[in-house]
């Protein structure tokens, strides 16, 4: 299972999906990704944070600096309506893509 080299664009999709579960900080998002993929997927900080900032610049997520549980300042990301729309659109095309992949690989 590829651990670091997620397909280009897939990471954005995964991050948006995780954020539909509720606002979260970067570490929490990374953690969720590991959990939800059954330890199968792991985004390094080196790609996680740039991706989050890129999503913010694109307007798909919003972020605020908030005091966390142990009173440290943490950046909390929230998905925006635009982000949800993008997630929906890209989820469809991803499923299409995955289906096509399976057909081709399955017929082998």
């Amino acid at each position, binding site marked *: 299972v590829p651990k670091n080299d997620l397909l280009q664009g897939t990471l954005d999709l995964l991050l948006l999906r995780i954020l539909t579960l509720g606002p979260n900080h970067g570490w929490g998002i990374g953690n969720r990704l590991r959990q939800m993929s059954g330890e199968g997927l792991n985004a390094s900080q080196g790609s996680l944070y740039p991706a989050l900032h890129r999503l913010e*610049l694109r307007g798909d997520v919003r972020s605020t600096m908030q005091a966390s549980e142990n009173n*440290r300042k943490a950046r909390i990301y929230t998905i925006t309506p635009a982000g949800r729309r993008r997630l929906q659109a890209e989820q469809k095309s991803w499923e299409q893509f995955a289906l096509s992949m399976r057909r081709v690989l399955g017929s082998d």
Partner: protein
Amino acid sequence: MLVSLIARLRGLVTRRNVERELDEELAFHLEQETAASVARGMAPDEARRVALGTLGGLTQTVEGVRDVRATWVDSVWRDVRFAVRGLRRDPAYASVTLLTLAVAIGANAAIFGIADAALFKPLPFEHADRLVAVRETAEEHGLIPVNAMHAREWRRLSQTLESIALIGTAPLNLTGVGDPERLPAARVSPELFPMLGIRPQLGRTFREDENVHGQDGVVLISDGLWRRRFGADPDIIGRTVTLNGTARNVVGVLPADLEFPSLAHLYAIPLPAGLAERPEVWIPLAPMEMEFRPDGAFNFICVALLKPGFTPEQAEAELDGLEAGIAPELTQTLKLATSVVPLRTQVVSGSAAGITLLFGAVGVVLLIAAVNVASLSIARLSARRQELAMKSALGASHARLTREVLTEGLVVAGLGGGLGVLLGVAGLRAMLALAPGDVPRLSEAQIDGRVLLFTLGVTMLTGLVIGVLGAWRFSSVGAREAAATGTRTTASGAHLRLRAGLVAAEVALCAVCLVACGLLLRSFGQLLDVNLGFETARVTTVDVALTDDRYADAGDRGVFVQRVLDRVGTVPGIEAAGATHFLPLDGIAGTSGLIVEGRPDVPTLDRPLARVRSASPGLFAAMGIDLRKGRGFSPSDADRAVAVISEAAANTIWAGEDAIGKRFRFGPAAGPVRWIEVVGVAGDVHSDAADLPAPLTVYVPYALEAFPTVSFVFRTQDEGTKTQAAVRDIVRSIDPDVPMSPFRRLQTIVDDAMAQRRFHVLVLATFAATAVALVVIGLYGVVSYAVSQRTREIAVRLAIGAAPGAVRRMVVWHALRPTLLGLAIGVPAALVVAVVMRSLLFEVMPYDLMTVSGVAGLLLAASVASAWLPARRACAVEPSRALRAE
């Protein structure tokens, strides 16, 4: 898109915040990671270590986020700050490079200020791109001013010119308001003002019906005169002023910002200083009948407006065709034709070559400066090899490092350019003070938006040259290779070759600059050696204008001049005094075609043409003009038809004969024929210009050609100014109403005539000296570097018994090799430039051996001198210590 823009803009404004928040965000991540590992049962220290293990990754994360967030402004700004920090860490490098660039860019800004005003800026008139100057040409005389009758026919028949205006020079005496004053003035066709789009600030310009003799009692005045003499009187329109004794109605005041060229720059041939200035008074042309002769009176400036879509060449072809119909005889005998050029070309014609040369030279200085700085920055890059290699290893991309090097070049140039603009302002001020008055449109020269834009462009280019050379060097070595110690020697070899090549280029450029400067210097020297034919020591002159009605009669003018001279002769301290109406080197005197007794008559311009100067009996003594044959004038000659002619005239007109006793007259024959007898032959005087051959000259007694202006010339025993006051009192006591010019020393007139050359030589010499200094710095840098690289080798050589002399020779060779290479390229290039600038030379061939060998010698000497210190250092190497150090 918009969201993204806002986010980025916010990032720009709150850059500090974004960075701090990013730090906090990642610190939080680290803490969570550690806490999670501890929770999984890892020892806290171990957990911390594992989390910190991603520290390298952490830097990459920061970079990654920055890359996402960064706008180009961000990254450029970061590179700029980085470059500035680098410069501050290296003050020696920073000060040398910034100073070098500031001087070079400043000099460029200043020269461009002058060149732009003179050569590039459109004339400040409407339709400036369609304005042309029309001149006539005759085969033997080149350009001549325009004949009024010809112009009248052009106006009638031309299909290419929309409008044609004539301008005549006519200084006028203003009397009746305070002190009498002689004012530069112009007689102009009424078309001139609408054609140039000049609208008066008060009143109107001339009407067509005022362009007729007898109905022309009107005058326009300049803003300056209006303020100076009339207190900016708003009711000036309709007031009467007396000019040359004639009353004229003021009909208008011209605008304050009118930048009308001085008449000297519009006239096809040189004009005396008194006629050349910017007019302050304008009267209708109202041509007189005698000015409509088809074969004479080539007296006028002609400015015309092309119809849209026509070129000056087309107009010239058309006028040439018309000319054949207007003056068929002259077009045959004299090859009379026309010359039509853009008006701006005429205005700068006297200075274009010189200004272009200075502009070129200052460009060369900048190139040398840029190459020098590039060479220094390459040296610095080599010193930073380790740092760059480290960055490269830490993941900085090659493109990123290249960008850093480029940015540094631009930053250095930018800072240098900023300082340069300040220096340019000071430099332009200095040059305006130094520049001769006859550089056209000097009053329009200033550091304005155009100059700043030019400087910005030059600065960017300089930065690119520096940056690209540096980046090229950087990529050719390669950061990784640079880090490896094993390749040190090859790297430094390539480095040395590159810098030596750059210095060779500098030497070549410098040689071009030096040869140009040397040729001008030699020309100037030759010019100073010209025997002008008169003595300037302790000679003072003053002009008096007898243009008043009271002096309408030539006899009265003669009486006035004689009375002044009689009394000036008795002033203690005055050795000799005389009068003439045209001083040498102060414009070109009137020219007459001589009709020689006993020879068939020919058309005017085919006759021997001679400058006519009046001379009182004492003039030859006062000016130190030799009498070669016969006699000079005596007081009894005042009303006799006699002449003293110059040697050139005698040898040309009466070659092989004795001129004394021969007779001639001026054409055309009006009234009774009066032959003028030659009584003496005087030495030649280079009166047109020091670098022009002495013209044929005919001196006649003042009364014979009684011109309305007179220059008194007197030689004093000492330099005292007491005699000036005495002369002024004498003139005033004889007639308090005649305007007098300020006193001028004859030497000043000679100096002024050479001022433009002196200015060129001075500025070019400054540039050349700067270029040499830069080359010496460049050579020194290369040789020093070579010595530092070869310390070990030199130590070995010394240890096994090499003589210090041999080592010194080896070091000097490092400077000589690029110098010789540079000379091999530079000297041929310089000769090409020298041929191009031939028109600026005087009595010096473009391939002047003395100049070229002098330049080569100077550069070789400079290169040996620049190697001297490094050579001494090399010989002082202590073998044992140097070898241990490695």
